[in-house]
């Protein structure tokens, strides 16, 4: 009798609208409106890389507070069983976690138990040449699909309930040095994605694909071709191998229907004589019309970069008060050591000030260009410049607390001797034209890290929490006044976001390299989830 009852129920349920929707791919489809809504007070979701389209990574949840955070207890740990590490932001919806791992892997995980529901693995070509680890920064989700960029420069759409491949689009030929590690961005029926390979003489681009079919909707080359404005900022044919990769997720302003992406370094990284000129749009931020990929404005942080200072940091959007006016801004702590607040409608520089020790430029001039100090062009003998090639900060996500009006960033204080030499371009081969040697154990040169709280209207440093060594951890802030971070020695840390005081710590056994914690509600309890090394661990207050 029991089985008959169940079958009857199933039969009856099939006819209901709710289950018709479920048959299309789970309980409800992720909508554009939901993503635009960002992180909601019910804590039910984390649908896009930065939590919301502005990449603020600021949760409205308040169950975990500065007073009780020290009572956090582990709920479970998931192990990837891979050789390389997480560099990802996890997505969360309907009690399920969706996470990408290294070496073209991904999982759907039961958030209640940490148990796998499905896994995805895509074979890695044996002749793949990715510059900086076989990593991935996360999924995008829209409708009933997940979207993942792959190391062999494809974009795949996976069926959310099963992990099966729905479509597979080729971004570029990996044999030519292209790869992709970026978390895609789902925007109004399109999936926006970029390519890595700035150390392999690629010509970078940003693509948008139809979310349903995988058909390419538009492409924006980050290096203009012949006849296009900006091509003359590259001498000779250097534009063809100029890099300008795109490997960190941008932001989206639905009101303008514009996406904002930071662009990577020009190539070869350190030898600039073979690519004379400003080298647009390398080391820049570009604002693109999300409908067609056309350039709305651009700003180049580091014209003719020769220090590998990709502008591949995560842009954060907010509306802030500056000089008594509310300005729509994009906030950007750059690898070159300067923090910028730009008007996101016009690209105008509203503020630019160093947030770490720099010795290559005195300031950003009224024309928006850095005022250079002599002696910082790398050469065969070596030239000492601060920051080092990893920069004042890098790809690990910052956060922004709109209630406090404070921007948080993990900053690096480090200097390097940069070397450069002329190098012949060979397709698919490493093409850096130089190298660097970090300065260690020199009491006159800094080598440490700090989580810094900045006022984005003035650039003023409100507080800092110093690490022994530079951290590569992304951040998460909460409305209850917490900031979650990590150090390079493997400690997961919770600080008071108003004072920088350390409140809680746990040794994860591996740093949060480029990963950020996320937070969400599950069965009435706020959880904090952190990827570190090959582990994904969920924390909550004791029941």
């Amino acid at each position, binding site marked *: 009798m029991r089985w008959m009852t169940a079958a009857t129920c199933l039969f009856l349920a099939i006819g209901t609208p709710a289950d018709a929707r479920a048959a299309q791919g789970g309980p409800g489809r992720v909508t554009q409106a939901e993503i635009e809504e960002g992180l909601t007070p019910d804590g039910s979701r984390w649908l896009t890389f930065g939590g919301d389209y502005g990449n603020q990574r600021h949760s409205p949840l308040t169950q975990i507070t500065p007073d009780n955070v020290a009572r956090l207890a582990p709920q479970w740990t998931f192990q990837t069983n891979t050789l390389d590490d997480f560099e990802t932001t996890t997505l969360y919806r309907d009690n399920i976690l969706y996470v990408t791992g290294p070496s073209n892997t991904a999982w759907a995980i039961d958030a209640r138990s940490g148990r796998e529901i499905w896994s995805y693995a895509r074979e890695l070509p044996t002749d793949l*040449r990715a510059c900086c680890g076989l990593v991935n920064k996360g999924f995008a989700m829209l409708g009933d699909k997940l979207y993942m960029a792959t190391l062999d420069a494809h974009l795949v759409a996976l069926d959310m309930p099963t992990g099966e491949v729905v479509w597979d689009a080729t971004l570029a030929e990996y044999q030519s040095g292209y790869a992709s590690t970026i978390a895609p961005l789902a925007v109004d029926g399109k999936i926006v994605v970029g390519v890595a390979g700035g150390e392999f003489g690629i010509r970078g681009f940003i693509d948008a694909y139809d979310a349903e079919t995988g058909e390419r909707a538009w492409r924006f080359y980050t290096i203009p071709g012949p006849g296009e404005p900006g091509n003359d900022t590259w001498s000779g044919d250097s534009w063809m191998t100029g890099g300008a990769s795109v490997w960190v997720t941008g932001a989206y302003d639905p009101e303008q229907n514009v996406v904002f992406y930071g662009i990577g370094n020009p190539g070869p990284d350190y030898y600039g004589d073979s690519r004379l000129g400003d080298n647009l749009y390398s080391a820049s931020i570009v604002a693109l019309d999300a409908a067609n990929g056309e350039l709305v404005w651009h700003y180049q942080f580091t014209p003719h970069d020769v220090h590998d200072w990709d502008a591949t940091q995560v842009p954060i959007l907010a509306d802030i008060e500056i000089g008594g006016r509310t300005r729509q801004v994009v906030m950007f702590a750059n690898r070159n050591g300067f923090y910028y607040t730009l008007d996101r409608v016009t690209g105008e520089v509203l503020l630019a000030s160093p947030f770490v020790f720099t010795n290559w430029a005195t300031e950003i001039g009224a024309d928006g260009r850095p005022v250079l100090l002599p002696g910082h062009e790398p050469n*065969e003998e*070596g030239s000492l410049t601060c920051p080092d090639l990893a920069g004042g900060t890098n790809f690990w996500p910052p956060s922004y607390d709109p209630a406090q009006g404070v921007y948080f960033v993990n900053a690096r204080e480090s200097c390097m*001797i940069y*070397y450069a*030499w*002329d*190098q*012949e371009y060979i397709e698919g081969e*490493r093409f*850096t*034209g*130089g*190298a660097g*040697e970090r300065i*260690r*154990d020199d009491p006159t040169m800094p080598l440490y890290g700090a989580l810094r709280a900045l006022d984005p209207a003035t650039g003023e440093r409100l507080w800092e929490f110093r*690490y*022994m060594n530079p951290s590569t951890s992304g951040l998460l802030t909460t409305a209850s006044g917490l900031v979650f971070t990590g*150090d390079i*020695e*493997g*400690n997961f840390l919770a600080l008071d976001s108003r004072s920088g005081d350390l409140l809680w*710590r746990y*040794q994860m056994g591996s740093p949060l390299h480029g990963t950020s914690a996320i937070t969400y509600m599950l069965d009435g309890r706020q959880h904090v989830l952190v990827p570190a090394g090959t582990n994904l661990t969920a924390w909550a207050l004791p029941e």
Partner: protein
Amino acid sequence: MANRTRALLTLACLACAATGWLAAQDLPDGNPYTGDAEAIRTGMGLYRLNCADCHGVDATGVRGPDITGVWAAGRTDAGLFQTVRNGVAGTEMIPPRRARDDEIWKILAYLRTLATPTAAAASTGDAANGAEIFGQNCSGCHRVNAAGGRLGPDLSRIGSARSRATLISHVREGSRPRSNSGYAPVALTTDEGRAVRGVTKNEDMFSIQVMEVEGRIQGYAKDGLEALEKPDGSLMPVFGPDRLSDADLEDLLAYLETLRGFDPAVP
């Protein structure tokens, strides 16, 4: 079919082995890129990207050995090529996964430009007496061939890893171990008032892991310490002429020069 497949596989394996054997036989006696300015420039780039972290930009050694004297010490281009291609077993030097043969030759062509032209004059001292001096003054902290103390670096390869000038400098003037080398000195006092001296093996913001001078390894929570100091320099005492005569130093150097990590029979 199964038999045929097996036969083909066997043939393929034989072919691979033959190719490998031929490749080994085909290795040129000398470096085809020696003196080739373009190749040397490429080799410089490859060296600085792949080798300098351990061997130093000037190749005089950091974590890895000083390799400026390898030719002067009798190694050949072909032998050095095999060392790079195969790595050095039991060390951090692993075979480079993707290096092409021409890239290795170019690195060696560049390295040759940094090399000392002639071998440093071999020590004229008495190595047997040097071994005794080492036993009395050094082996409490330094291991050689699995015997001796652990506080300082293992010196089983020191004769091929560091130049004579560097050894003299370290003995006579002292050294400055890198802060992350595992040999930087530390002095701490526990909350119970116990004083500990040793070297830092690892450290984070909240804890420090130490090898104490007695050889014990131990970790300490920093909030359980009354004092934590990191003195400059090294725990190794400076041996001036008052403690070690020039003649005894010469004998000690003669002994250290016999401590070579590689088999001298290898070309």
